Structures are given as structure tokens and as C-alpha cells.
């Protein structure tokens, strides 16, 4: 991750997203990942392609609902929803549904750069007043964490992959200019190889 690691970041947030996500994914211990569209998907692919990632190029707001449906269908597997602040805000009500269904195997990590990074870095709603962790707690998800430095990774990994879920974490990440890392975009191909990796479909 040297290239990304050397990338200058702006704003006050210190976490460098590519290196941070790569470390989280390295420690996922068999968890399947539902990344939100855009940067969260590029981050996963940049960390090394895997059929256990459900790459997304669309469906804004659906990362958490999809991960929830998957977690309920596969109760013996850990599932991680990994998404951005804008995507999470669009599907924010789904946190109430997660709290209500209470899957023990679901972790949610929001990469919060407080901006709409894909569309020109327009200021997002989490930059000032909105506190995503407080929202998640209000919806009834009590198992939460806020990461502000790379030193928080071990605690984050423990929360997302080892604790009894559902869990919800926010990582305050810096705005960075990372190299493009674009995975497969044929949704049917992505879904099929994901199902094969899960053992749900035959190769």
C-alpha cells in the first residue's frame, strides 16, 4: 500500500482509506463483504480482488439492507457492510431494521470522509451536526465504535468480526486522491461468483 500510503490527505481526519481498508480486510477471517457503491468498492478491489466481495456500482442506500438479507440467510458466516457516509445516510433507516432483526453476524463500517467523494467532494451531512454513531445507537444498535487513527484497527476488527452483532462503526477518514481501482462491473457475474464462493451456487 505504499503508493496510497504516501498520498497526501486533506481535512482534519487522519485515516488513509486504502491502507486502512486493506488492514481491516486482511483481518476479516472469512467474513464476506458487501461494499457500497463507489469508493468502498474501489477500496476493496485495490486491497486485492476476492470473490467474497459483492462489488457495487449502483443501488445507493442498499449496502446495509443487502448485507442484512445476506446475514439473515447465512447466520453462520460473518458479514461486513462497508460503505461511505453518503451511502449510509441515504439508507439510514435500514439501521432501524438491522436493530430490529438483530443479526449477531453483521458488522457495519462507515468510511466517513464527510463528503460526496465520487461526485466532486461536495460537503456531506456528517461534516457538522450529524453523528452517525449517535443515530445508530438511537435506532437501537448499542455495539458501536468510532475510529480516528490507524491504531484503532485492532479494536475495530474485534468489534466487526468477533463481537456479537449487530455492530456499527464509523472511521473518520481523510479526503485523498487514490489511484483508480475498478473491478468487474457485470452485476450478474459479480453475484454469481459471490454465490459460488458462499457455496450457494455451483461453479
Amino acid at each position, binding site marked *: 500500500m505504499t503508493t496510497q500510503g504516501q498520498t497526501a490527505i486533506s481535512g482534519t481526519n487522519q485515516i488513509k482509506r486504502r491502507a486502512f481498508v486493506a488492514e481491516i480486510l486482511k483481518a476479516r477471517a472469512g467474513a464476506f463483504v458487501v461494499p457500497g457503491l463507489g469508493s468502498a468498492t474501489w477500496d476493496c478491489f485495490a486491497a486485492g480482488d476476492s470473490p467474497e466481495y459483492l462489488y457495487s456500482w449502483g443501488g445507493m*442506500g442498499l449496502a446495509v*439492507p443487502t448485507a*442484512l438479507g*445476506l446475514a439473515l*440467510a447465512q447466520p453462520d458466516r460473518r458479514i461486513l457492510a462497508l460503505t461511505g457516509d453518503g451511502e449510509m445516510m441515504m439508507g439510514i*433507516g*435500514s439501521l432501524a*431494521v438491522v436493530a430490529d432483526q438483530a443479526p449477531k453476524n453483521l458488522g457495519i463500517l462507515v468510511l466517513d470522509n464527510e463528503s460526496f467523494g465520487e461526485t466532486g467532494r461536495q460537503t456531506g451531512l456528517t461534516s457538522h451536526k450529524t453523528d452517525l454513531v449517535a443515530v445508530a445507537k438511537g435506532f437501537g444498535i448499542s455495539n458501536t465504535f468510532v475510529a480516528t487513527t490507524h491504531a484503532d484497527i485492532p479494536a475495530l476488527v474485534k468489534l466487526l468480526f468477533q463481537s456479537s452483532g449487530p455492530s456499527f462503526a464509523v472511521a473518520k477518514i481523510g479526503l485523498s486522491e487514490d489511484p483508480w481501482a475498478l473491478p468487474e462491473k457485470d452485476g450478474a457475474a459479480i453475484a454469481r461468483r*459471490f454465490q459460488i464462493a*458462499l457455496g450457494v451456487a455451483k461453479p
Partner: protein
Amino acid sequence: MTATPETGHDWSSDVFAAMTARNISTVCTIPDGGLTRLLNLVKAASAMRLVTLTTEEEGIGVATGAWLGGKRAMVAMQSSGVGNCINAVGYPLTLRSPLLLLVTMRGQWGEFNPWQVPMGQGTQTVLETMGVKCFPVDSAAQVGETFAAAADMAFNGQQSAAVLISQRIIGAKGFGQK
């Protein structure tokens, strides 16, 4: 002639039986009055799961995730909820995941509430424009077989299908204003 609903035939039990026969084990929903009986059957069934949503589009994500994980789910809603789902409908289509919607119609047959009319009248057009095959049904006795046909098309053919249950079957809510 008045816009009297059909009564007598228990279509909810027919749908429930068709769901059971097809291992459709999860129903995601924003409830509607016309869905009450079916949703109660699902809630009472130990092998089934009711997922209450905050907005209908979430159900499309949950149903897609269920299919990815090897389970079958559907989304049940009132016709106004279809409008909340438009962009989300493209998601299972792109992943070639099955999608099964059960929609109780409002704004259609004897509706007294004008606020329900625009989306009710647009429901089928919107769904078809988005690539969802629509199965409108206006007789209670035909709901079960229509649902079964739509479910088979969705899950066996990896298609998006919607059963539209006419307000003629459900009845128009009056709030004492009829």
C-alpha cells in the same frame, strides 16, 4: 352499482400456501390494510421471518441479499410504496437476482382519497418501465395462482415480477367518508 369489494375468498391463505410450497421464507414489508391477514400468517409461522422496513426500497436490498445467501424473500407493500422503490428495482435486475413484489393497489377502484391516485395510477407503468413483469389480478380466487406463477417466474427464471392485487379485491377505505 357501487365499488363494493369482493368478499369471501381467502386469497391471503392461498398466497401463504404458495409461499410455503416454494420456500419463500421472508417477507419484507411496509404494511397495508389489505396485507394484514397475510402478514399475520407470516408472523405466526415459526419458519418464516417478517422484516419490517422504514421504506420499501430497503426490502429490495434485503431480498437480494437473501437470494445471494441462498434463501427466498419477497417484498409486500401498498402501491404508493412502489414509487419509493424505483431506483432500487434496478439493483436485482443488474445482479440478475430474482425479485418478487406483492402490491396491494390503492388509488384505483373506488378510491376516495385523491392523494393515493397519482401513484396508484402510475404503479404498473413505473414497474414495467423499470423492467418488472406485472401480474395484475382483480379476482380474489385468482390471486393464489397468479402469485404462484409470478413467484416461479421470479425465482426459477431470475426475473423481477410484481403481483398487483386490485383495489376491487381489497376494497376502498372510507374513513367514514364514503
